[in-house]
């Protein structure tokens, strides 16, 4: 095996994500056209040297739209995971440190929410809040909280009994100090692995809701919305759906590799 921290899975994941994040950051420099520029003479052109990913029904350059589309697509995935992880870690640590009845109640609640089909509830919630990327991120993010809460609580419970935490407590350290200095830093690797694996699901979930029409609204070039717009043209204009969908698949694959790679690197016992 290669040296720890540099396994091939992790490297492949980082390489893919490097390209995607680069596209998002430098879309303004890389895109050959304005992503929203309508060109009536260039409607539904197949890929060519002028338009490497073809054009859509308004003559907009698909390559430029996909590059710009990386921004909302990645942002929403990151926002969902950030909401879920932040909420989950706060609830999980608090519950684990508090113990007793509060802990039991919180964990029962977590168990109940985890027993529900989250994406179906998110669908209803996003529909009720009205179609927008912000509402979509909120709906998916909140429903992700229990997963992180459970992990954070389990880790907190085991860390709480470790010698260095007991020593800190014996020396009179406050709960807040213990949480900040001992629990959260030791919790971080596990949560980071969970987050990177969660990013793939968040991207797929968000782009699927966008595809249904619950997320990004026109003319925003979010990837799921791009595939949605291509639906009437699938048989005659194959490139229209192909490239934005491939961008979702590639990015999601990159997140999965990153998560698997990080897990193997941080915890050699898992996997393999």
């Amino acid at each position, binding site marked *: 095996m290669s040296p720890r921290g540099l396994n091939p899975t992790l490297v492949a994941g980082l390489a893919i994500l490097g390209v995607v994040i680069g596209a998002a950051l430098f879309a303004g420099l890389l895109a050959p056209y304005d992503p929203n520029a309508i060109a009536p003479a260039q409607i539904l052109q197949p890929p060519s040297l002028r338009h490497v990913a073809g054009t859509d029904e308004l003559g907009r350059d698909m390559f430029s739209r996909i590059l710009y589309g990386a921004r909302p697509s990645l942002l929403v995935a990151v926002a969902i995971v950030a909401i879920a992880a932040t909420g989950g870690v706060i609830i999980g640590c608090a519950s684990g440190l508090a113990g007793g009845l509060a802990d039991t109640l919180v964990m029962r609640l977590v*168990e*109940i*929410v985890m*027993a*529900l*089909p989250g*994406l*179906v*509830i998110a*669908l*209803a*919630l996003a*529909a*009720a*809040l*009205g179609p927008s990327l912000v509402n979509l991120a909120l709906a998916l993010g909140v429903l992700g909280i229990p997963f992180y809460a459970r992990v954070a609580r389990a880790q907190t419970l085991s860390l709480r009994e470790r010698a260095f935490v007991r020593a800190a407590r014996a020396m009179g350290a406050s709960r807040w100090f213990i949480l900040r200095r001992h629990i959260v830093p030791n919790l971080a690797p596990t949560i980071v692995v969970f987050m990177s694996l969660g990013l*793939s699901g968040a991207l*797929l979930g968000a*782009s*699927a809701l966008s*595809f*249904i*029409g*619950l997320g990004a609204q026109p003319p925003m070039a979010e990837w*799921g919305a791009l*595939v*949605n717009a*291509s*639906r009437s043209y*699938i*048989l005659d204009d*194959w490139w229209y*759906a*192909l490239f934005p*969908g*491939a961008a*979702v*698949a*590639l990015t*999601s*694959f990159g*997140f*999965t*590799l990153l998560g*698997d790679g990080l897990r193997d690197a941080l915890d050699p016992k898992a996997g393999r």
Partner: protein
Amino acid sequence: MAAFVLRRLGFLVVVVLAVTVITFLIAQAIPGDPARVVAGPRADAQQLAKARHQLGLDRPLPVRYADYLGRVLHGDLGASIVTGRPVLSELAARAPATLELMISALIVGVAGGVPLGVAAALTRGRWPDRLIRAGSALTISVPAFWLGPLLILVFYGALQVLPGSGRLDLDPPPPVTGFLLIDTLLAGDVAAFGDALAHLAIPVLTLALLDVGAIARLVRGQMIEVLGEDYIRTARATGLSEATVILRYALRNGLTPLVTVLGLSIAQMLYGSVVIESIFAWPGDGSYVVGAIFNLDFPVVLGFALVTSVAYVVVNLGVDLTYLLLDPRIREAG
């Protein structure tokens, strides 16, 4: 064991109540004032207050929830704003189409995923294992809303061997179960059976492909664990053939957790079917709810969430109980 079953049933009741609380709260989050709709746009404050009172909107939230719960328990999920018909019967009418799709996909997914997972476990670390693992990582990453159109493009557009949308082109058989594969056979209509099967092919393949990777991953992990057990070594040491060891000893124990995968797959498919049905114009609950979202037909959207959540929770209870029957260790521990 009785205690375990009772505990699970108790949990089921709590979760179902939680679902009703959630759908009730989501309904409160919907923008717009129902009283305004009833009273009309020109209503003055007094008329508005009267409408609020008639609709019961002036009562405290817990009272309104109790009212809602009472109606739900009697099977009253409200009426569709678009058609005026009861939501529950609208959903029930379309359920067979969705179930036929999901069950078929589940069968295909398991039939593909289990052998792949076993093969990967047996060739652990060598190229077939690597290939299967890479393949499953890939299928897990592919979005359903992309795979579906691509398969339509290939099998319907380019090759022209399969239909690209709908459930049936021929005349439908007299409805008995609502499952076209069964109804056509009952009617003795072989041509319609073939037609229904052909219409199922691409949507089922799409759903199943998305699931195969996840199933293969789990089966691989379980099989590797089982293959390391003492009784497998003992079986091999007694001189049994490798085929007997795998089929008689390892597979039986390695596949028990598959029941759990089925529970997870169903959750995945509930959601996948919403996307897949809307792509393939499949006349089930999934495409119906997408239409409802656009028509702002909230009773239908919330009814769908409620019904699918309850169905999901009940299926998972069934999964747990099946697991209990299959695995004596859990049965004893109770």
